[in-house]
């Protein structure tokens, strides 16, 4: 139950791109075929392991509908990571990415890790946005990129875990002030909060070297 770190995530993007499905696949390993429109924000959580450390992810799945935009903005500030999702079968969801990104950059803390996700990769026949386009957008804006399918679970674990890895590395580099809760990071109860440079900062390099998975 106890964890070394706790990271707060938000999931953002147009309505219907599959944000809630991604979360459900990640927390419950289920897929929900009907669009159950999110009202406001819903919470989900899961434990993962990085570098043999337990990390608790607290994830806020936001509503993509315009009407909820002002509510969902309240969640940017306290998040350490964001999954910015578009739907590869609907170009307009890709076109809206800049708006989302501007919004996120404006309201979040500058260190927030943003992972760009092209979802519904299982629907290859209906693809409207090429994978290369997603990659290009990510490169241009300094984001990590990945195509996923909430339906087949392809890359879903990776999307959440890689985001956590980024955050974890930033912590190691000392970029994040982990004692400031507004950054969306908490240290686990058994870890000393007075030691921000962290247990085994040297060991990280070693484990990175041996990380094969």
């Amino acid at each position, binding site marked *: 139950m106890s964890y070394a770190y706790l990271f*707060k995530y938000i999931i953002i993007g147009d309505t219907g791109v599959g944000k809630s499905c991604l979360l459900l696949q990640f927390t419950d390993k289920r897929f929900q075929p009907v669009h159950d429109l999110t009202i406001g*924000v*819903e919470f989900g959580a899961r434990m993962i392991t990085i570098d043999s450390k337990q990390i608790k992810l607290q994830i806020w799945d936001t509503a993509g509908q315009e009407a909820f935009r002002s509510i969902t903005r*309240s969640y940017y500030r306290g998040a350490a990571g964001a999954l910015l999702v578009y739907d590869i079968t609907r170009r307009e969801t890709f076109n809206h990415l800049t708006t989302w990104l501007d919004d996120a950059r404006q*309201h979040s803390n500058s260190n927030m890790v943003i992972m760009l996700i092209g979802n519904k990769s299982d629907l290859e026949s209906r693809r409207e946005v090429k994978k290369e386009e997603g990659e290009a957008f990510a490169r241009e804006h300094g984001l990590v990129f990945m195509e996923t399918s909430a339906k087949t679970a392809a890359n879903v674990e990776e999307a959440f875990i890689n985001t956590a890895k980024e955050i974890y590395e930033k912590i190691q580099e000392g970029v994040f002030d982990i004692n400031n*809760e507004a950054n969306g990071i908490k240290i686990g109860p058994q870890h000393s909060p007075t030691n921000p440079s962290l247990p085994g900062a040297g060991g990280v390099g070693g484990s990175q070297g041996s990380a094969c998975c």
Partner: protein
Amino acid sequence: MEYFKSGLKSVLGGPPPGTQPTGPETVEKLVSRVSTSTLLEDRRDACRALRALSKKYRLEVGAQGMDVLRQVLELDRADPEIIGYCLDTLCNITSKEIFEEERENDVNPNLNVGEQFSEMFLKNPENLPVILSYLEEYDFRVRWPAIKFLISLTTCKPKEVQEIILVSPMGMSKLMDLLAENREVVRNDAVLLLIHLTKSNANIQKIVAFENAFDKLLNIISDEGYTDGGIVVEDCLLLMLNLLQNNTSNINFFKEGSYIQKLTPMFVLPENLEEIGWSPQKVSNFHCVLHLVRTLVSPNNPAQIITSCQKTLRNANLLEALCSILMASGVPADILTETINTVGEVIRGNLTNQEYFTNVLAPSNPPRPALVVLIMSMVNEKQPFALRCAVLYCFQCFLYKNEIGQELVVQTLLPSSSGNTAVTTGQLLCSGLFSNDPLSNWFSAVALSHCLIENPAQKEQLLRVLLATNLGAQPVTLLSQCGVFLQHTSKLQAKLGILMLISMWMAHCPPAVKIFLNVPGAMAFLTAQTSASEFDNNAELLQGMCAFIMGLCVLFNDNSVQNYSKENLSQLIEKRVGLETYCKKLNEIARHELYARAAKQPQIRAKHSSELLLEFEFCKLFKIMEGSIIQALGVQRDLSNGISELSLSEHENALLLQYKDLIRDQDKKLQECQRKYAFLQKQFEDVKAQKDELQQTNIQLIDQHTLFKAQMSSGANINNLENHQNDNSAEIIENLKAQLAKKDEELADKIAELESYQKDQDDLLELLTAQDTKLNKFKEKLRQIGALPKEEDSNSEISDNEDDNKPSLL
């Protein structure tokens, strides 16, 4: 009008004009000084003076000063002192409270004046963000009054404030930062403000939780000494309650964030508690904590949430802590009661927790199971009513979805082999069942009935229970004794309790029906009650219940009692009671107010013992069985009808055509109705829109009216001699009043119109349903005589639905 005149008289009544300015005159002068003076010092003094007058002359200060005060807030940002005066003044005029000073001024102060000024202030959407920005000002003279002003506004107009804060950037974040305040008064008022703001608004609740509210609040609570702390602990707990109640997402967050574990210290009772006793604040704090735990495992939450919270509560040793409070001495009765309820919900439907509870021992000599001790209190007339109810609820929770527990209790009633002499739950319930206290009868009957829910094995086991009645007489079965007691007791509560037990017992259990049918006089009693016609003191419940039992005797009859076969009983109901009367009596139950109340939630909620007649699980059973009973009685009639139809089968073709025509006809009518319905709905929407518009106008008029009233009061003062102007204002007001009255009338007309449309719509809907039913019946009949093929495209919708629901006959 009167209000102002009398108000003015008291102000003007004293010295002749000219010697001393009146209050309203002063207000007028001050307001003008604030708005025109170029010297900050002057403005500041005027604001300070306005603040001093803002209670006594609230109406004048509000009506004349609001705009000016708002200006100061924007222009004099740099001077904390004047901002503080401004915020204080605004806080006073928008307060919901009626001040002493106001009362001195006027015996009949306007109750809504605070609300009206709040509304005026909020009407301009730019105003609130200005106040929010002052929360970032660290200066005590600014931050504190800003919070208090926000409390005033939120108390008066919660919805409006919530909406504005949600759309103002970082609005909630600014509020949340206040919890980190090191000046206690400020922090405590921030907690109060958040309590008001989070009331019934899930979006705000979630944002507050996201902003680490639970961490911050639990920190405050622990700093203040947990439940030994002062009222701020209670406030923090109330805020946490607001965040969790009916908010699954937040409950999930609370659990996942390991906050349940952090509640543990609150349940630790000090060793010497008996000596130091429970302060009233401690009692309040404790109530809140218990309420908090119950919110996590409330039966209204999704099952998955309940189960995981229950598990966490057990693993965090909170169940253990709760049970020890249950068995501790010196705990006040209302805390004990609430603890019992809480334990109940923590174990409800959770086998592991229920099992844990079974093994809890009371520290008596010799140690007895806690369960036994609790049941002792339940059947003890001297215990407080609420506590006895709580014990029953806890017991029900213990049995809920717990076959092992059910068996355990029933076992203690069976002829025992062990020769154990210790008092058992079963024995206590049995003696409670037939004691002289009708409430004990009711409690015990309901408790026993819960041992039988969805448990056919225990229904049969309980049939084996024998009671020794008189010395030397043959022992009788528990069920027959219930049948006998039912006829002997004169208390309605006792009768209904027993009847609920019997109904739970006999449902799906023919052997129980058999025994009951053999109880001398039982059937005669039921028949007499069912056909009785008195209607007072809830007698209709008794009659309905007897009808219900008769129905169960038909439904679950294995024809093993000669005079009371299925057929015989149906005849009895039809001939002696009459099907119509029978159905009417049966209906009485579900129509009863107490039924609605009992069916709402599993917990037994009653202020007084006389309200305890029906119970949750019984209501569930009744709902399921009612239809089957009516069907069982009706179906038999239909069968005989069906036979006669079949004998007409030579005319099959003619009949078929006839029905087909009929169906086509009805289909047409149905479409017509649907068209009309859509039309009316549209009209209804239009009228509604009109109504809303009118209401809006009305509100505006009322506002104008208030403003005029206030302006006039001051106007009248200054121009005391110029009466004509006064008259002028009076005229305007009269005019406005007339307009208002007219609008009111218009509104009333529109509402009436709306209602009539609504009624039309309902009628149409009813008609539609009736037609639907008819149509189905016809089709069913057609199908029975085999004339109607399964697929029919002519009236697709209805037939499709039906085919989906019923297994096909073909």
